[in-house]
């Protein structure tokens, strides 16, 4: 614990460092927002950081995004949404069950520890190692450029995360209530659905949010497996520079559209982020 010996100078120094840290964290977002309100002409001629002082803000970029470019953007957002929700549903459903199973039952032939480690090892697998076979399999199944292909891939890559986080959560819930339900004649599924699931609901929701964000931000497989109809937002923003160099203004608007949903959503999962991202190695 920190031993407080705060002088005025110490306090000022502390807040000064905090101010720098906070500006460093915010700056890219600030820059994106400011850029999105610049006129295209102004962007490439005058370097500027402050609206009103250095340039007159305009809504033109945003209105362009929501009018003439809206069909493309809304389709991409729709794809991202469907893919992320689909993948999250699969990953969380199977992940909750497996996490519960690993936390509550003892397995003999393959030990619990081994199965948990096996799920963990999946997170260490470089996605690049499976990209080519996935491409060939999806091509063979005629699933290239479909949302289903991306749902399957993202569910696979986020499920180990869900299993590990939720195993940890169920382990910390008291076992006694379920045990007494078993004694009263409830089946394992009844005990799971009526007792454990409601207790773990907040943690499950947080894990779902993180799975959603992972799927939303995924780029490599989206790039490889889609080319037109099923392109999610990450691939569509990757297309911005190819036409006429970098077009700052819609880079900025589009990036904000792509970045905000998962980043804001993740704030609701705060409590579980440390534990989740370290697979239970560090309790948050």
């Amino acid at each position, binding site marked *: *614990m*920190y*031993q*407080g010996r705060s002088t005025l100078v110490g306090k000022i120094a502390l807040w000064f460092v*905090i101010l720098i840290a*906070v500006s460093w*964290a*915010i700056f*890219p977002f600030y*820059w994106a927002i400011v*850029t999105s309100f610049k006129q295209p002409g102004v962007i*490439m001629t*005058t*370097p500027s*950081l402050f609206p009103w002082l250095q340039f007159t803000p305009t809504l033109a970029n945003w209105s362009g995004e929501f009018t003439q470019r809206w069909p493309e953007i809304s389709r991409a957002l729709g794809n991202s949404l469907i893919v992320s929700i689909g993948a999250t549903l699969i990953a969380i459903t*199977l*992940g909750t*069950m*497996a996490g519960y*199973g*690993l936390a509550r*039952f003892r*397995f003999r032939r393959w030990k619990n*520890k081994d199965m948990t*480690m096996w799920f*963990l*090892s*999946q997170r260490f*697998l*470089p996605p*690049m*190692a*499976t*990209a*080519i*076979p996935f*491409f*060939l*399999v999806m091509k063979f199944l005629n699933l290239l450029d479909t949302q289903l292909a991306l749902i399957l891939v993202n569910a*696979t890559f986020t*499920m180990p995360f869900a299993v590990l986080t939720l195993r940890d959560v169920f382990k910390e819930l008291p076992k006694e209530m379920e045990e007494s339900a078993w004694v009263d004649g409830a*089946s394992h599924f009844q005990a799971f659905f009526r007792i454990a699931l409601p207790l773990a609901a907040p943690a499950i929701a947080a894990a779902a949010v993180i799975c959603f964000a992972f799927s939303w*931000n995924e*780029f490599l497989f989206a790039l490889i497996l889609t080319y037109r109809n099923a392109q999610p937002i*990450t691939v569509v923003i*990757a297309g*911005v*520079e190819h036409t006429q160099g*970098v077009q700052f203004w819609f*880079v900025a608007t589009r990036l904000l559209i792509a970045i905000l949903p998962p*980043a804001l959503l*993740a*704030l609701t999962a705060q409590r579980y982020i*440390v534990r989740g*991202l*370290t697979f*239970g190695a*560090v*309790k*948050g």
Partner: protein
Amino acid sequence: MPERSRVKYLFVLPGIIWVLLFTIFPLLYSLRLAFFQARLGKSETFIWLENFRRALFDDYRFWNSMGVTVFFVACSVICTVSLGLALALLFNRPLRGQRLFRALFTTPLFTAPIALGYLGLTIFHEQVGAVNTVLFALGVEHPPAWFSSIWPARIAIVLVDIWQWTPFCFLVLLAGLQSLPDEIYEAAWLDTSSSWDIFRYITLPLLTPVLFTVSILRMVEAFKMLDIPFSMTSGGPGAATQTYSFYIYLTGLRNFNAGYASALAYILLFVMVLISLSFFNRLRQIYE
């Protein structure tokens, strides 16, 4: 209970089967490909270990991308962990608005790296980017042309990666600091009044397991780096920022050299296994 022995499998098997189906088969398939001269859509010839020999002894692009990746990993891990530790020590005290700060530092983690790369493109733009705007304002007459020379391009990428991942190290290390027992500190403050001694002889040793975990996780993530160079520099100038994953992507999915790309992917897999073994041993104890 007879039910017990069966039902428990119903809980874990669906997840296991799913992940097996979608990872083991692709991996086995690409293991096979690694021993073939195989171009997508054309005939395959079995060539034993030729792909691996070519990568290790006969491909300067392999070693270039490996070197670039190792450089990125080293910079990124060292900077994010030490910055994260500094911030965590700073915030590990009763502070007004701590929740707000933590929330603020959570957002970069969930920002799509591909989007961040494009944002980096505008931030480091030579004439009108944010960084050079500031440098101009500070009176620097010739700020670096970030994307046309080798080292500035590499540094720009590392900076973006550091921006994204320092918060991760910060959050985890802060959680680690907050879980350290208060009693030890109370006792220690009786013996010394030097906060450096406290840090050196108490905090650091106690925090070592967490530092280790963070470093390994960062290393593994950094080794996979692809999105940021892809969007920010396309691997350029030349191949100066072409990471290893990027090189595999180009080999397999732009040049359709599936056999060689699979061999390259297996080399990466091997490196990852080496790195993560020690971490796995630690987690084995935790997962008891």
